């Protein structure tokens, strides 16, 4: 395989430099500076205070709850995503355009509306009011909101890769006698692994960073239904800016470690 870092045939040396400057400039203004600001605000008073701030009982519980919600939402949406991507790219059925748009909808809906929608279905007087267990203002409701907001990611990351890769390898496998499940497991899945990986990474980041919809259906009960983002909000409102930034940095670290584990896994590939 060609060395990915030699100059691509589609690019001149000057083009490479100008793209680099453009990308770094844009990212600098939009991303680095804000992130650096958050870090400075977090560690500005020393790492001791940061540790204190993220090891309070409320913070620890928020951390656990955040991870728990991601651990529920992401695997489920990954399975959904792969199945849906396969259907969309390889299947033939009417209404693909509508289905496509529906899958993207969770993002287009403001968190206010998601919260309202969940209230209308599972809340008091709602369509599914009266279930034997507590849905809203408890973990299930928060899980529903989290699943909702990171639903599209894996589909959208996998589908373009599926399209690019094509299905010749699966056809070859079929002619060699592989069952559909074998073909899926040994041929399809590896070919889309980076789409899946990025989809998972983005889903995790989105799930842990979700604020609006979860805040409406969580009840914001301290130590019970408060995620890290809700904790950030509470601390910010209660004049504990350093604590708010510390919790934000923790969220950033979780997102970074997800990406890091994916990158490390990639490095180990032959």
């Amino acid at each position: 395989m060609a060395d990915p870092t030699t100059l691509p045939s589609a690019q001149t040396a000057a083009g490479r430099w100008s793209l680099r400057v453009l990308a770094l400039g844009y990212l600098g203004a939009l991303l680095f500076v804000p992130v650096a600001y958050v870090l400075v605000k977090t560690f500005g008073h020393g790492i001791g205070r940061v540790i204190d701030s993220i090891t309070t009982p409320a913070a620890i519980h928020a951390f656990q709850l955040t991870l728990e919600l991601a651990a529920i939402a992401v695997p489920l949406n990954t399975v959904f995503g792969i199945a849906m991507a396969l259907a969309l790219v390889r299947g033939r059925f009417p209404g693909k355009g509508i289905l496509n748009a529906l899958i993207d909808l969770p993002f287009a809906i403001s968190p206010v509306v998601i919260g309202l929608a969940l209230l209308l279905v599972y809340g008091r007087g709602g369509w599914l009011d009266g279930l034997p267990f507590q849905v809203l203002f408890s973990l299930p409701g928060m899980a529903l909101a989290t699943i909702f907001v990171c639903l599209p990611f894996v589909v959208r990351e996998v589908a373009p890769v599926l399209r690019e890769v094509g299905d010749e390898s699966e056809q070859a496998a079929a002619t060699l006698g592989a069952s559909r499940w074998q073909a899926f497991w040994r041929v399809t899945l590896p070919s889309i692994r980076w789409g899946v990986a990025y989809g998972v990474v983005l889903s995790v980041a989105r799930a842990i960073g979700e604020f609006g919809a979860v805040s409406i259906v969580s009840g914001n009960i301290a130590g019970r239904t408060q995620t890290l983002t809700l904790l950030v909000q509470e601390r910010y409102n209660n004049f504990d800016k350093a604590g708010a930034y510390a919790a934000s940095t923790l969220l950033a670290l979780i997102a970074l470690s997800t990406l890091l584990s994916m990158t490390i896994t990639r490095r180990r590939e032959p």
Partner: protein
Amino acid sequence: MLGLGVGTLWLSVIVLLPLAAVVTRAFDGGVSAFLDAATSRQAIDALVLTLVVSLLVTAVNAVMGTVIAWVLVRDRFPGKVVLNALIDLPFALPTVVAGVTLVLLYPDVAYTRAGIALALAFVTLPFVVRSVQPVLMELDREVEDAAASLGARPSQILRRIVLPTLAPAIVSGAALGFARAVGEFGSVVIIGANIPFHSQVASVYIFSQVESGNTNGAAAVAVVLLTISVLILIGIRALGGTRDDG
């Protein structure tokens, strides 16, 4: 196909059921009440502002996202790994932090409509980048190299080979980014001035309707916003030339 069936069921329970509840609520007072709420001046202004700014930001991020993805995959320089890791942060940071930080860092655009665009650019930054990256990584360089050896210039290779291959991914990422921009609330409500008719986006208007006790009106505007978003999403994909997939 089993996958399609299971997937549609999941989609229905998680997304369509709650949405159906909103649509039902929007028409609770009848069609005329729905139309009244959906076409009030304030609602229309909020919708127009939201859609215009979101489309603008989507266009910018489609270009910049592709550039950044290209640099991340095909270029090499110190710190690239760190850079790659940072791209996802706009998702992980609570929107409240994003809004507050941007206000403090860029006070000139704070409380202006440009500020809204800035916040939306921030929260939708990862979409196109992460959408294009896996496709770029899968891209077989040999086709490009072969074209080069046949005498094609870099710009030709770019235009005729690379970009068409990337187009579905760019479109997919851009569509997602647009959808997110349209629904964004937390950061925009902080960096915008929230003046009705001037700097109030649809999601803030919907929230104000809920707070004022006008849930039916809120649901109505939400339904309108969603419908327009669906149409624009279908349009963006049609533009990308993809007929059948994400």
